[in-house]
């Protein structure tokens, strides 16, 4: 037992040395999570600010000005043109100069004063329907706020039911709060899976694998010696991503580190298991790398990182059950933002444990089989 542990320790040391020795690789592994967190944290936002819009105000009344002031005052809209011709609206939208164009009819104030419904036409560029939808929702909110003001100014009754909206865990509904913690899982998965996939493939390509096999290492020891260094590096990356989230983006951490790291370790085991399985199939480093990538893509896309799992078709939702990243993102979100304990994330832990067990045993079986 002791001898076995010593051998595993030697292999771990060797793996770490081999990877971390090369300055370029070391930088790649260490800087990448930080850079990606920063980049994604800033770039990947579905929140809108600074929506460029144009107005064709045919009324030019106090009411229409009040409505537009609502938009301009929201801080989200940025008026770039006051138009006089409807054709210009078309042109500005076609050329992507504005995202939204608003047209106010000449009788706007009059209709309001008469107690009628006064239409406001809002045209949005649907080339990115998500952004357009968000922009329309903002316009709707501004108009609703305008209505409320109008009603109170003119002594009219308020709308009969007021909907009180409240968001838990992320009161301001910032995309970043969602995304950056999710990256902790995504980035580490990419690197650990890739590292594990390459670790055996590299030895095979360089011919050192045979040399390793003639030493007293047992297959289980080799697997452990290959899995642990990749996991360690994954943990370091996860930690640096967490630090960026907390120290740079100031996203408050609500849960316990212990719970989080228990979850992360299980997740990394699963990721490394998949990586080693890829490694056991691949003949060359190139194959290992490309296969790993082909797997990482659907894992990342079907994880809920970019689009919610609940809006996927049922079949695809079933498929996500074998995706460790799905559980990891859920787990990190809930521990980080909601602050739940181990018992609450149990539903994320056991699937990852099963994935890890299955992939690691499959990899061990493949290694043994390829020796024959």
């Amino acid at each position, binding site marked *: 037992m002791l001898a076995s542990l010593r051998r595993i320790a030697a292999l771990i040391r060797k793996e770490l040395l081999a990877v971390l020795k090369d300055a370029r690789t070391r930088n790649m592994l260490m800087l990448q999570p930080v850079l990606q967190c920063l980049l994604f944290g800033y770039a990947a936002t579905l929140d809108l600010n600074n929506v460029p819009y144009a107005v064709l105000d045919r009324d030019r009344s106090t009411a229409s000005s009040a409505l537009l002031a609502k938009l301009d005052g929201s801080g989200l809209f940025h008026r770039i043109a006051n138009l006089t011709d409807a054709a210009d609206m078309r042109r500005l939208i076609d050329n992507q100069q504005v995202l939204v164009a608003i047209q106010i009819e000449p009788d706007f104030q009059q209709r309001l004063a008469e107690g009628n419904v006064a239409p406001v036409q809002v045209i949005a560029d649907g080339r990115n329907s998500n952004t357009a939808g968000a922009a329309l929702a903002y316009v709707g909110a501004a108009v609703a706020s305008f209505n409320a003001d109008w009603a109170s100014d*003119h002594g009219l009754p308020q709308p009969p039911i007021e909907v009180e909206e409240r968001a838990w865990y992320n009161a301001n509904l910032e995309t970043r709060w969602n995304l950056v913690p999710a990256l902790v899982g995504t980035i580490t998965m990419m690197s650990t899976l890739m590292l594990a996939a390459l670790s055996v493939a590299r030895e095979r390509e360089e011919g050192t694998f045979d040399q390793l096999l003639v030493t007293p290492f047992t297959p289980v020891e080799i697997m452990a010696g290959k899995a642990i260094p990749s996991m360690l590096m994954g943990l370091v990356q996860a930690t640096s991503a967490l630090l960026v989230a907390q120290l740079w983006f100031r996203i408050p951490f609500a849960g316990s580190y212990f719970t989080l790291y228990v979850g992360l370790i299980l997740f990394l085991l699963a990721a490394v298991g998949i990586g080693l399985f890829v490694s056991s199939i691949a003949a060359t480093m190139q194959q290992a790398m490309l296969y790993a990538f082909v797997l990482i893509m659907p894992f990342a896309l079907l994880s809920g990182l970019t689009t919610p799992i609940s809006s996927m078709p049922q079949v695809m939702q079933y498929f996500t059950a074998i995706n460790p990243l799905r559980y990891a993102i859920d787990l990190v979100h809930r521990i980080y933002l909601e602050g739940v304990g181990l018992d609450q994330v149990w539903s994320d832990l056991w699937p990852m444990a099963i994935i890890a067990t299955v992939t690691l045993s499959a990899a061990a079986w493949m290694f043994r089989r390829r020796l024959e």
Partner: protein
Amino acid sequence: MTASPFADKTRRVLALIRKEGRQVLRDPSSLAIGVVLPLMLILLFGYAMSLDVKHVPIAVVLEDRSSQAQDIATSFQLSPYFETHQVTSMEEARDMMLSGAVEGIFVVQSDFARRAAAGDARVQIIVNGIDGNTARIVEAYADAAVAQARLRDAAENPDAPVVSGGQAVVQNQLWFNSANDSRYFLVPGLIVLIITLIGAFLTSIVVAREWERGTFEALFVTPVRPDEILISKIVPYFVLGMGGLLLCMASARFLFAIPFRGSFVVLMGASMLYLLVSVAMGLLISSTLRSQFLACQVALVATFMPALMLSGFIYDLRSVPLDIRLVSYLVPARYYVSLLQTIFLAGNVWRIILPDAAILAVVAAGMLALTSRATRKFLD
């Protein structure tokens, strides 16, 4: 030996292209990236990924069981956007939210009826704000559901006092995507990803592999010219990329019925330019680094990630901070995304197409020049 220098050149280029083509076809991993991945992405983007929110699980807590409250709950049940779970207490709902079983809670508090009588009716919608985007959409749908209940109410009780007073209402028009289908922009964006993958990611390995395996040393001491090596590295991956493009086009058109409003020729031209940019970038990375692992990692970070994040494909560049937006101008994929979205959904808007295409052409020329400078027949 043989005829003209040009014939010699052609023969050498063809021999190298044949070699490269065979390598692609025989290596299962190249095919995995060149064929399997595009197909998989098309299916994922077409069928699985959607930013449209539907069937969101919410808990409905009716502390007040008046008919008006029941009415509102029914309208949540009827809404295609929600999957309701009736629970009796707020505690229960809170637990469901904590365990991740529901994404939101709709609460009608016990004093609802009393306050409604006083003209101050209130309901509460609590959403899990982690995914801010979804949360916002859920809120909007919840508003709509409540409004729906009111309308039904009004229809059923024509005698009830009608709210009078002027109100501004929004008439929305979503141009280019009136169906409000997120596929309309995800699938054209997907073309960018696939071309980037085949063009840059796959090629980032091919030159480094020749260095690592030592195949270049023998190849260099033949009549082969550097430009011939370069051409032979570009052509097969260019063809593969065009194949991926056509596959995407076909699926966009026939599988997902995404409108195509511009000209096919313009689209092909733009795609070729971007493909050239990608291939040249992949080759440049590969010949500079000469290590497969590093080259593929750098290719991911330098080409694929920006194409995903900074191209305006998912995340609209109009909403990112200024400095990031400035960086995005350096990302070639940005111009291609803009071209694709315009050609697919808006038509031949030359004021967008011409400058974008011109930029891509310049970048392609520059990248090719850099790559050919990096392709030299020296070991040191």
